[in-house]
């Protein structure tokens, strides 16, 4: 139909826009919208990533802080334990020092006791069988017994009228008495030696007893 015969179809340039033109414009705008949306979504994704990363980092920080707290607590515990151990060690070291002094004193006492015993034993052996003292004692006793026995024989001979025999027994008895006296002198010398040793041992024993008292105190007894 001719536009001039149908005024209603006459194009109105200010009121209508061609579809192609509109479509192109729409395409441009939609493209811009899509691009903007892609950009915005990308940014939002970045935001989400950063947020997640920040959250994760904060969590890691919190975990780390918790570990720091735990480590500090452990550190405090360890330091307390060290202080306690050092205290115990100091006491143990003092105990070792004291015990060393005690053991040393004991060792010296033991040596002295052993010496006293050995001296006592030697002194005893100097006065018992096999010793010079014992030999002198036995000889003295034997001579004395023999002298008495010879006197009995002298009496019996005299009573029987055998005066010569009696006199010979008297002489024999006198000889035995001389032997007894000689052995008694030897015996006395040996007894003097033993007594001197006994005095020395007694002195050593007394001073040792005092030391043993000191040791008992040193050892806490």
């Amino acid at each position, binding site marked *: 139909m001719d536009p001039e015969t149908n005024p209603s179809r006459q194009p109105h340039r200010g009121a209508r826009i061609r579809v192609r033109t509109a479509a192109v414009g729409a395409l441009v705008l939609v493209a811009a919208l899509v691009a903007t949306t892609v950009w915005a979504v990308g940014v939002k994704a970045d935001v989400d990533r*950063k947020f997640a990363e920040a959250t994760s980092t904060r969590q890691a920080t919190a975990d780390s802080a918790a570990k720091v707290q735990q480590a500090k607590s452990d550190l405090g515990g360890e330091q307390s334990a060290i202080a306690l151990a050092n205290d115990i060690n100091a006491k*143990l070291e003092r105990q070792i020092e004291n015990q060393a002094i005690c053991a040393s004193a004991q060792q010296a006492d*033991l040596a002295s006791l052993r010496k006293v015993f050995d001296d006592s034993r030697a002194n005893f052996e100097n006065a018992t069988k096999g010793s010079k003292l014992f030999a002198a004692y036995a000889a003295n006793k034997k001579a004395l017994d023999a002298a008495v026995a010879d006197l009995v024989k002298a009496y019996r001979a005299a009573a029987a009228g055998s005066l010569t025999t*009696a006199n010979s027994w008297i002489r024999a008895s006198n000889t035995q008495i001389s032997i007894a006296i000689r052995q008694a002198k030897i015996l006395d010398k040996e007894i003097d030696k033993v007594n001197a040793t006994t005095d020395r041992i007694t002195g050593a024993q007394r001073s040792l007893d005092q030391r043993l008292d000191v040791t008992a105190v040193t050892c806490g007894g």
Partner: protein
Amino acid sequence: MDGDEQPPQPLPDRLGPPGPDRAAHIDEHLPPGPAPMLPRPARTLPRWLVILGALVLLASIGSVAAWGYTSIQELERQKSALASAKQDLAASQSELAGVNGSLATVRLTHSEAASRSASLTARVANQSACIDAQATAREAISSITQLQIDTFNLTTKNSVWAKAEIAREKALFRAAEDYYAAFKSAFLGSTSAAAASYRKGQAEVATANAQLKIQNDELATVSANNKTIMAALDAFTATLANATTTCAVE
């Protein structure tokens, strides 16, 4: 938009004024031959619709852009927060590393202290064992020494044995005197006096023998003690060896 597409015919103002002359005017300007075909008129949309659509799209773009812009700001905040969190994390990790380092050092020190405690405790135990062993040895040797001295004293001055020895010697000397008197009386023919002196001598000998028995009893005690001392001495040798071995351990 009008410049995009040219219509095939001249502009309307070339058609001349409307009215009866217009057809003639058109004829003058029409090319000879058959009349050309007019193209179909272009499809159009109402301008308001296009504008509305454009506005909607622009609004959408604006909204999305605003959202994106907000997101950028949020992104900046998150970046800042992340940087801050990373700094905090680094600081915390650094502190943790420091504390862990200290902890490792302190644990080593604690371990060394504990090890020293164990060593010292063992030394104390060894020393205690040494002290106990030496105390036992000391008791033993003291006891043996006392028995030795007691045994020795069984035959010393003022002992039972010594008193018996003195009494025996005196009795024997008196016996000797009595027997000599008996000899002299018999030699001179005084039989009864001789017999009396002899009997006195025999009594003194009996006394001496009685004292000798006392002495022998004491000597039996000495011998028994001596055996005890020898046995105790053997045991003491083992005790002393134990003390020496125990005290040699550090």
